[in-house]
């Protein structure tokens, strides 16, 4: 199916309220409230006419000050049997959990951990929701628009170490092994 056919098929067969369908640069887009994401994904995966059996990407956008709710979780689905794609955008506010897709797509496990790590969006019923790229002691979520770009973390060495070598250089000659 091409995007327009896909959109019309989705419009006729999906029965959720508050669904918004768009074709954006040749890809079909569905906007949906975050709480419905798991139900929608189940339907997309199990119904044979859609058969979206692959989650190619899962990421998020921070629309701080531009849009409410603040975040948008973006899913890209692909069907290996029908060769069609679908983008799903789920709007979510700060602190509000999004249903996890780990039961349906195991790759969602790491994608969701990444989104949690960098944006701080929680995923409900995720088996192991902890940081994946950054270290445990990291404070904050760096891809949020209100994270200062030059903020330093508590574990980062802020001051220079005791510079034995520099002191020795000032004395004129450097000695190794004090």
């Amino acid at each position, binding site marked *: 199916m091409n995007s327009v056919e896909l959109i019309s098929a989705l419009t006729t067969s999906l029965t959720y309220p508050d669904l918004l369908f768009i074709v954006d640069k040749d890809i079909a887009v569905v906007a949906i409230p975050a709480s419905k994401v798991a139900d929608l994904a189940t339907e997309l995966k199990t119904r044979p006419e859609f058969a979206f059996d692959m989650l190619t990407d899962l990421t998020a956008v921070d629309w701080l000050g531009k849009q409410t709710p603040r975040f948008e979780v973006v899913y890209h689905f692909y069907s290996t049997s029908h060769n069609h794609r679908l983008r799903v955008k789920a709007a979510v506010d700060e602190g509000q959990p999004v249903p996890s897709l780990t039961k349906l797509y195991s790759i969602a496990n790491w994608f969701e951990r990444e989104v949690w790590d960098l944006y701080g969006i929680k995923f409900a019923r995720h088996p192991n929701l902890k940081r994946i790229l*950054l*270290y445990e002691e990291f404070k904050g979520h*760096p891809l949020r628009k209100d*994270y200062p*770009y*030059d*903020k330093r*973390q508590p*574990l*980062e*060495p*802020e*001051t*220079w*170490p005791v*510079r*034995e*070598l*520099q002191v020795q250089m000032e004395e004129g*000659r*450097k*000695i*190794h*092994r004090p």
Partner: protein
Amino acid sequence: MALIQNNVCWGTPGDNILDYVLGWARKYSIFMYPFVTACCGMEYMSVASSHYDIDRFGAGLPRFSPRQADVLMVVGTVNNKLAPILKNVYDQMAEPKWVISFGACASVGGPYDNYAVLQGIDRVVPVDIYIPGCPPRPEVVLDGLMKLQRKIQEQKHEI
């Protein structure tokens, strides 16, 4: 005391002949540990291969074990998760040891003033020579290497 001609430090046997001889021997037998993490590595390869030929300075053989190396050359961006590993590598090297910081990233964090990148390796290990540039020209690297050789010649040595 050191005699410097054409930017090459020949040294003079000053008050301690042992320092002079060991310095001479050590400056011409540098074994580098290239800690290459990013795009500066291209420039390192160019320095190391035949066109610029770092072997003219006795530094031609990179050792890929820190225990066999005596100059740690940090080439490229070091991020915060890598910093403990860099420290570990430095600690594993046997004395005497020197550190070259190659490029803007290793020296001050370079263009990356953000949450991920260490703002200069001198926050973790002591640095002898900083080579500026993004990436540095091979000539600058050779200049830095010669400066390090002068430093080795002029310093006190212990066995």
